[in-house]
């Protein structure tokens, strides 16, 4: 009888860890062909690339030296001005993966977001998204703004910002979150490089990260079940009555944690549902004392 190995843990954290370990091993062995990555920052706050820099095992340095060849990034590249945009345009003739953060402003033919000048003409976010979106091998929408407009498209949305899928008409991988956790992006990238597109749910989010509700993994859940609700943000009990959106948000924050895997919003305040579609308008109000106020 052949050796029967113990079953591997199948929770998302373990799967993600095995994924990243394999990526590291393959990169070391030289089996990981370094694909090109273009990171576009459109109408947003650049929060996602800043979040990416907070990555920890793997970190950004590992990602751009071992996993991918980052050919264009507004914030990180050394080239400036025309030279930078020329590099971006040259990538159109090569194979690359496109990661986009930020929404696309539509008003006035996209002139509300200009990401550079190309041969004397302003290069709008709209144009860049369309040009690069159709040529890339894979397109990843990173962050709430790129996925469905997010804060950029919040009321009254004067620049008529929309999510990337309204402009790039092809299947995208969507990674909502405000910002997107570095692990979510790097894990998706690792999967993409080694095995192709990860398994996605109906909203095109990788099931690896966006499957369980925060509510179902929340350490304060026993308080919810017993009906013990907090009245101020200092109470350690369930924050449901103060406006916590944990029950409607599907993401792995309770177990993955943020800032190098040490803390997360519900440790101190409510969840504002930043990785659920409709953020922020449909997740408002974030914290309110209306439901816990004593009636006089």
């Amino acid at each position: 009888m052949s050796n029967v190995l113990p079953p591997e843990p199948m929770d998302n954290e373990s799967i993600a860890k095995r994924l990243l370990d394999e990526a590291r091993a393959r990169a070391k062995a030289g089996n990981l062909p370094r694909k090109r990555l273009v990171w576009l920052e459109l109408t947003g706050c650049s929060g996602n690339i800043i979040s990416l820099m907070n990555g920890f095992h793997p970190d950004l340095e590992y990602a751009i030296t071992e996993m991918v060849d980052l050919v264009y990034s507004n914030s990180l590249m050394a080239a400036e001005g025309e030279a930078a945009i020329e590099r971006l345009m040259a990538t159109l003739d090569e194979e690359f993966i496109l990661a986009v953060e930020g929404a696309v402003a539509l008003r006035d033919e996209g002139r509300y977001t200009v990401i550079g000048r190309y041969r004397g003409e302003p290069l709008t976010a709209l144009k860049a998204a369309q040009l690069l979106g159709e040529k890339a091998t894979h397109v990843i929408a990173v962050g709430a703004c790129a996925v469905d407009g997010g804060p950029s498209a919040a009321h009254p949305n004067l620049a008529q910002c929309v999510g990337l899928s309204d402009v790039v008409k092809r299947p995208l991988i969507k990674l909502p979150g405000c910002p997107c956790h570095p692990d979510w992006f790097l894990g998706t990238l690792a999967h993409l490089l080694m095995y192709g597109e990860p398994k996605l749910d109906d909203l095109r989010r990788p099931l690896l990260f966006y499957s369980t509700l925060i509510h179902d993994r929340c350490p304060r859940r026993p308080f919810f079940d017993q009906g013990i609700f907090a009245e101020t943000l200092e109470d350690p009990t369930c924050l449901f009555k103060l406006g916590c959106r944990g029950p409607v948000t599907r993401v792995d924050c309770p177990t993955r944690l943020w800032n190098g895997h040490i803390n997360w919003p519900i440790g101190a305040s409510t969840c504002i549902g930043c990785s659920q579609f409709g953020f922020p308008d449909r997740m408002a109000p974030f914290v309110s004392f209306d439901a816990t106020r004593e009636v006089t």
Partner: protein
Amino acid sequence: MTELERLRRQIQSVMGELRYLTRLLSVVRDPPTKQLALQQLQSQIGYLTFLIGLLGERATLAESAGRSGQAQGQGRAGAMAAPPAVQRLPSEAEPSAPPTPPTRTFTPAELATFTGRNGKPAYVAVGGTVYDVTNNRAWSLATHFGLQAGRDLTAEFASCHGAQQWILGTLRPVGRLA
């Protein structure tokens, strides 16, 4: 609500007794002790049935007392002297007992006061029925994806959850929309 508390404690102690008796039955060997334990088990189950019936009556009473005081509710509670050996739930013996939810009619203006704020519960109306979503996990702060409680949300429900009518079955109805 001390009455309710007392009932709950009674039920808990009966459950404790039942657990003890079943454990006893599993170890005891001689027939007379077994018989005794079985008889005790039967009587405890009967008592539990009676208590559960009483609990159901209390819950209905609490709701009806809060709105239009129904005199018959009080009368029924007084007639609740069923012996412990009865196998059927006391409410089954009376056809007028309400297993259906209480039906209070809300006008849209009345419904609009139940916003979930300032101590009021949160109610929403879908398809003519008014539901209580105060402690529903998807309705934190009486809002759900930008929708406010205290309104008729039939159209919004149909556009988003049209294929998931079972969701309505998980909600607690409190009346009908006029």
